[in-house]
């Protein structure tokens, strides 16, 4: 598994497309996909939003993440701000953080994209 992370709109998806020769059809979107199809995807983007949907449908996102077997996972970094006032937003932010740690731990490589520039922060340098 390869994890691509970074803030919003930093070029994570573009990086995945360029590096792995993916097209839009290869990338499933955690915000809109059919959750039962996730297992068949080659790449998912917005994993943090999939976490939110899993919480809403009553599935344990951490168990789901532990069992996840996908070549490429794209996930925004969302924890570097102020603690949200809304309890469900707090819960989402917290569980996303833990889910991200599970993915990074499983991943053989973690890439962080900032301003379009990718830095390998875990694993072999490209």
């Amino acid at each position, binding site marked *: 598994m390869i994890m691509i992370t970074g803030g919003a709109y930093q070029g994570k998806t573009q990086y995945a497309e360029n590096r792995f020769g993916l097209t839009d059809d290869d990338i499933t979107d955690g915000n809109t996909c059919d959750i039962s199809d996730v297992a068949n995807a080659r790449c998912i983007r917005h994993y943090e939003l999939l976490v939110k949907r899993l919480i809403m449908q009553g599935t344990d996102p951490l168990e789901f993440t532990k069992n996840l077997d996908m070549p490429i996972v794209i996930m925004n970094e969302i924890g570097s701000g102020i603690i949200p006032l809304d309890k469900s937003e707090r819960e989402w932010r917290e569980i996303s953080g833990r889910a991200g740690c599970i993915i990074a731990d499983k991943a053989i490589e973690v890439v*962080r994209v900032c301003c379009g520039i990718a830095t390998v922060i875990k694993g072999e340098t490209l």
Partner: protein
Amino acid sequence: MTTLITGGAKCGKSRLAEKLLDNCRGRKLYIATMKPFGEEAFAAIERHRKIRAGKGFETIEKYTGLDEIQISGKSHILLECIANLCANEMFENEKICDPTEHIIRGIEHLRKRAETIVIVTNNVGSDGVDYGSETNKYIEVMGRVNALITGISDNVAECVYGVPVVLKGRLEI
């Protein structure tokens, strides 16, 4: 040796910080700055306690004023976390204050009594939301405090979903 660990929420900062003190021999102190108010704070404190269990830490709870902590002899200190300390000091009284100098003085006080000190802080300024003047001030102070701590630290790392990214010095894990 002073090490600062920063990063977003729930991204493995504590775990990394504790790991850095795993091989330290001698007295280990955990200075907790989070006020145990409310169900979620209790849950967070309990979770951190479980992670630390069996690692031989003595816990000191201090929500403001690190410079008042009395420690005899040299210790290995884990201070967690600056974001809570800063909020506690800033919003302690009705009129908000700028606790920057007080926090740095407190850290210097601890450094003199520590063989090793690992400080955990938080990145709070990267969500792009305008929260209004008081919270915006907090974000500003946190940015400045973190930069000042970086200045006096030997090592600084940012934790990204559990992966340490070294920004200054080096980590011995």
